[in-house]
């Protein structure tokens, strides 16, 4: 009996370690390749070469304009997160706590946005943004990404606000709190976990977005990392070490944010799933 239990536990751990390896091996391999030279990789695709060849990173950062892509990614993602929150927190409050007229209809129409493929908005937007002069501006991309990210934020905030204790809100109303006061002192502090989860998700989506920058940030000086990386792959495709260095640079910031805030990630996902 005991032997059988050891056997099944051993099997469980082996299966888990195997899956962990599958998740990690591609990343480790790219990190390894990023500090080698093309000749090394051609000779032995798997392995480490000493001394480590860090100049790949320098070359990527300077010659391949990664410093600029990186900055653009940060600006667009931060601005998108801020815009989404500034717009959706008051809206969710009006819809859920105050319940202004047409709240439900507005909510349903916004919810539709969760299912809409981006391809049903990109075609006319491309021509409109071009005539508005908003193409190749980071603010144009921010407006579109915020509009695309808005339905999810409204959905999550509405669910969180519905769970707020009514007596706290009623007490604030009796104290004569204005709407702004109410938002600042009651609503935002009480749904902070949801706001934090939204910061993480909206940041990640904006950081990883391909289609919006593909059409609206085409000039080299406004490109974000994913789009810069895909052009970069075409240009430097022959040198796997350089491509690996560029890829590693695009991965590390999100990886860092994720590892620091992985509680918010996981809680946000599981909370969203149960609603």
């Amino acid at each position: 009996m005991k032997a059988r239990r050891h056997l099944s536990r051993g099997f469980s751990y082996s299966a888990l370690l195997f899956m962990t390896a599958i998740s990690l091996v591609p990343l480790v391999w790219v990190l390894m390749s990023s500090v080698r030279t093309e000749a090394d990789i051609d000779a032995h695709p798997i392995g480490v070469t000493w001394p480590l060849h860090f100049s790949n990173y320098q070359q990527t950062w300077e010659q391949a304009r990664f410093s600029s892509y990186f900055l653009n990614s940060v600006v667009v993602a931060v601005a998108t997160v801020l815009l989404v929150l500034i717009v959706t927190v008051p809206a969710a409050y009006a819809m859920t706590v105050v319940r202004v007229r047409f709240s439900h209809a507005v909510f349903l129409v916004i919810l539709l946005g969760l299912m809409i493929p981006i391809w049903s908005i990109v075609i006319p937007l491309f021509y409109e943004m071009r005539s508005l002069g908003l193409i190749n501006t980071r603010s144009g991309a921010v407006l579109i990404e915020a509009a695309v990210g808005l339905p999810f934020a409204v959905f999550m905030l509405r669910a969180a606000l519905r769970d707020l204790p009514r007596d706290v809100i009623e007490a604030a109303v009796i104290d004569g709190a204005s709407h702004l006061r109410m938002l600042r002192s009651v609503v935002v502090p009480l749904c902070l976990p949801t706001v934090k989860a939204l910061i993480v998700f909206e940041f990640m989506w904006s950081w990883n977005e391909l289609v919006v920058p593909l059409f609206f940030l085409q000039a080299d000086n406004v490109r974000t990392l994913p789009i810069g990386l895909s052009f970069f792959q075409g240009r430097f495709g022959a040198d796997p070490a350089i491509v690996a260095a560029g890829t590693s640079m695009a991965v590390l910031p999100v990886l860092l944010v994720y590892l620091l805030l992985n509680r918010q990630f996981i809680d946000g996902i599981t909370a969203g799933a149960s609603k």
Partner: protein
Amino acid sequence: MSAIAQLRPSEAAVRSTGTAGRPRRRSNGGGNSLWAGRAGLFLVPAVALYGAFMLWPIGQTIWLSFTNWDGITGSPTWQGLDNYRRLVGDDRFLHALENNFEWVVGSWLAQGLGLLVAALLSAQWIQGRTLFRTVMFIPATMSLVVVGIVWDQIYDPNRGLLNTGLNGLGLHSFDRGWLADQHTAMPAVIATANWTYYGFAMVIFLGGLQSIDRSLYEAAALDGCGPLRQFWYVAIPGLRNQITLLLLVSFINTLRTFDLVYVMTNGGPGRSTEVAAYYIYNLAFVTQQVGYGAAVAVALTVIVLIVTVVFLRLRERER
């Protein structure tokens, strides 16, 4: 002005006492209308942003789908239903949709794998659960562009990880150009997508499994159910919500998928990996058939909406 909050009776009572002490600038009956009225303004920025960059372009796409615009010359000309007539007999569109559905079915493998890993991780004696979960979710946080480039390198016929590994194991006969072969390109792309999907499924299933009442397992064990039957009769029914959610999310995301195909194969070799979104991109922005591209986009949107409505209806009926 006339905005009256639809309050539940008890709240209405509380609110009207709340505003009664304040000077009323406007009087139109309900004591809480002032309180609610201004809050309507809070909806304006969200509705404006969503209207201008989601609803308006959707309307435009629908309109463009009835025209033959090429995106360059003059203005679009009304063509009636011509584009939609062409769509019905368009083999290339049907083939792209087939690829989408192959992808949907392929993604079930990731959901199954996620369920399996979650089941292993939910055992009470497992050490390092958080660490396993954190690491296995990493691929799900990565940009699909990055994932596509990494796996493109892995599949490289000469210096890729896969062929090098296979040769190292002495399996030379499996060695091939994975993305260059008509028969393996689509499975290779789907496998790449699954690499990012299964961690997500695992996290959702694990959350669900951990919220199932332990006493249900104990009751099943008392009735003589072994671990497998406990899983089937207790865990699976308890995960119904998570299962429908994952099926729906993977359906929606897979039907509109684009990034991996754009980065890894451009729809090739031939059209073996062309999905609907890539076809739309090709029509509207490469071959300048904007009107027809819009019609395909509308069709794809309608398909996604139908699938969603059917799913939600089924889910409601089950409850």
